């Protein structure tokens, strides 16, 4: 590895032109919700700052986060981000193998001590001294602790790293444990979702690399720019919810008319994520658009809150046809999924504090 390169130098070396570079800067600004005046600032930062390496570790997981990540919407943004990352360590995509890869990992850790970002996909299982996830002959938990020790910050990709996810579902046979419960002395950015949306992942990592700081987080440690709204708040089927028009079974008359999926188990009202705005697979769609309710995969504990397909029969169609009642319905939804109620209430309270007078959040501001 040569001296400390800047991001721009790395990109040049990867064959990215000046024109593409500037385009990337404006895309980044747009993705992060910043105005065009930030473009020169981003460009300047990329040209002058030494690149921050990202080390991407895989624990107990299913690789869905990586799969989501590598097909983010703009190929250029993906190329750039990927070229920054693949230079370092990611065992699904990188070129080198085995011990050579281990050597690179150690080299980066040494050279960029205290200055690299650790991205974790999956989580460590703690039962039986960690032997349910062995990486290079050693428990993953050891590798995680070792790499986290000198990291500047940790990104917990996906629900496994952030919350535990289905592998931590009862009876949690391996005691799969979220990252923040074992790494307690580093800033941790949680990017939950099973998997998270590609654009959310690239957005978070780009923000951190570009501005060299952690995005503003909510009380649960999630970046506010992507996790401050419920799926329900921006769902295109919301008018049907408000009008009391519901799907009762997949493929019934209501399903054909695109009614609300709440009664067939949709968790949109209690789930904070960007699916209904950013959507999936390059903005093509999201689960609700394909006629299936949201399963709440970015919420803590979504795996142990009763069946996803349990019909919500305690609702009466008449009686909540207006916006003002949305919060009541939201809370009913939360109650049916048990533990979520406290979280929902807490986050609603937090949002009330943040968005005083924000007309877009009438339901919460009530």
């Amino acid at each position: 590895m040569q001296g400390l390169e800047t991001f721009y130098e790395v990109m040049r070396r990867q064959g990215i032109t000046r024109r593409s570079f500037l385009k990337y800067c404006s895309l980044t600004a747009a993705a992060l919700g910043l105005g065009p005046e930030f473009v020169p600032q981003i460009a300047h930062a990329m040209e002058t700052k030494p690149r921050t390496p990202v080390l991407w570790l895989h624990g107990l997981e299913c690789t869905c986060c990586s799969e989501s990540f590598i097909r983010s919407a703009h190929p250029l943004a993906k190329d750039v981000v990927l070229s920054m990352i693949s230079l370092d360590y990611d065992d699904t995509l990188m070129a080198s193998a085995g011990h050579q890869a281990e050597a690179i990992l150690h080299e980066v850790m040494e050279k960029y001590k205290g200055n690299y970002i650790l991205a974790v996909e999956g989580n460590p299982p703690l039962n039986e001294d960690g032997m349910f996830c062995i990486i290079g002959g050693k428990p993953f938990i050891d590798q995680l602790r070792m790499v986290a020790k000198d990291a500047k910050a940790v990104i917990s990709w996906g629900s496994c790293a952030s919350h535990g996810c289905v592998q931590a579902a009862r009876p949690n046979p391996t005691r799969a444990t979220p990252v923040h419960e074992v790494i307690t002395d580093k800033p941790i950015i949680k990017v939950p979702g099973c998997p998270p949306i590609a654009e959310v992942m690239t957005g978070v990592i780009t923000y951190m690399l570009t501005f060299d700081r952690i995005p503003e987080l909510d009380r649960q440690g999630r970046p506010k720019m992507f996790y401050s709204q419920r799926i329900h708040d921006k769902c295109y089927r919301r008018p049907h919810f408000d009008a009391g028009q519901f799907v009762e079974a997949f493929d019934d008359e209501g399903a054909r008319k695109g009614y609300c999926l709440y009664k067939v188990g949709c968790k949109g009202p209690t789930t904070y994520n960007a699916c209904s705005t950013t959507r999936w697979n390059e903005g093509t769609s999201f689960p609700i658009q394909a006629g299936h309710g949201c399963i709440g995969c970015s919420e803590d504990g979504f795996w142990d809150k009763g069946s996803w397909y349990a019909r919500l029969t305690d609702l009466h169609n008449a009686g909540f046809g207006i916006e003002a009642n949305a919060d009541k319905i939201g809370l009913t939804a939360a109650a049916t999924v048990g533990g979520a109620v406290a979280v929902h209430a807490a986050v609603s309270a937090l949002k009330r504090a943040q968005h005083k007078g924000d007309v877009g959040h009438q339901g919460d501001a009530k």
Partner: protein
Amino acid sequence: MSERSPADATTRLVVGPFNRVEGDLEVRLEARQGRVEAAYVSSPLFRGFERILEGRDPRDALVIAPRICGICSVSQSHAAALALAGVQGLEPTQNGRTATNLIVATENVADHLMHFHVFFMPDFARGIYADRPWFAKAEARFKAAQGTSVRRALETRTTLLHILGLLAGRWPHTLAIQPGGVTRGADARDQMRLLATLGAVRRALEDHLFGAKLERVAALASVEEIEQWRANGPEGDFRLFLEIAADLDLGRLGRAYDRYFSYGAYPGMEAPLYARGTFTAEGPGAIDTGAITEDHTNARMEGRSRPHHPFEGSTLPDPDDEEGYTWCKAPRLGGVPFEAGAVARQMVDGQPLIRDIVARSGGSVLARVAARLVETARTLIAMEGWVRELRPGEQWCAQGTMPSRGRAAGLTEAARGALGHWLKVENGRIASYQIIAPTTWNFSPRDAAGVPGPLEAALVGAPIRQGETTPVAVQHIVRSFDPCMVCTVH
């Protein structure tokens, strides 16, 4: 990590962790005089999905089972839906079946593209091959994460996955496949978008991967034809692969048992697109799923006294087991190991080129990779037909009721081969859920009789060059199976 010893003595080598495979894998090799004499394949990751599923509402398998794997999630969801449909005695609607075929095929083709471009070919861009005549091309196109073909394939794959966005809401971890069909019917506008997407993918593959019409690839029928393709066929990555395969003799590398099976892929009105059955030295045969068993002798699992049919199976990890060397059980059909995958599907279905390759020099790295490419072409052609078969406005999902008691198997074909879910329902809850994934078959450990699994057999004889600690031939053989380690143990 090798113990060096006198030239003719046995050398032990641990290869792993592997990159560019899905999940974690470790292979222990015993080598002598530059050849592998014995291999032991270890899957070092265990999560316990089968245990997690027990006691839940059976329908929740549709959410939990796909999360076994972010790569094969659609196949897992299809197997779960089939098992649930079996318990309910429910037949999917015709529209639902066609849409499901499209959804499953999209993932399988996407996986084949990922395997060839991102996992398999980059090994030929390694410095160790710098003296080969094809190296410059291989390096420019397939250097990991940077080669022109790698990048282009990722873009093509992203385009292809719009189909899953459109029909299934998102990918990975799609939710649309249900026991009675799918949650979303396609309208005429969707049909046009689907055809446009498939058209774009077809163009990309015809321009760069094959340099020829998909139909021409699908119709390949003999070894002579691919030899001709290599000598003066259209320029493309397929031809480059044939060139490399000939130079490195990949047709003689990595032979296992030449015993194949498939549950049959993409059900149709009368027959599936790819036939169900077995293919062995005796030729084609029917598959008796009652003769499937799992042996725990070398898996760190309780239940070692005898092999079990998956309906009688269990998943109780035994970390104190010192003899077991993997979390992977050893599935057997009629007591012997079988290979699953695209090569198995094409062998069982009787695709003439693949049958010819295997007949002449056995199932090899070449046979496995060629089968995947031929299958990619065949499947894409079929997908275009399915889009036209969709009937907008007609029923897409049938409704059933879950009995309080019952059992059924959901059998489908993932990109990597035969995938089965065996579900037992009692008192309206999941009483038992056993999963056998394709890589469980291919990367199985030895059974009670000491018979190695297919990869373990395929690695015997692999050359190890002087001083190699991660022998490149071993890497080719391992990756030729396109292993999915997270599915293997689940």
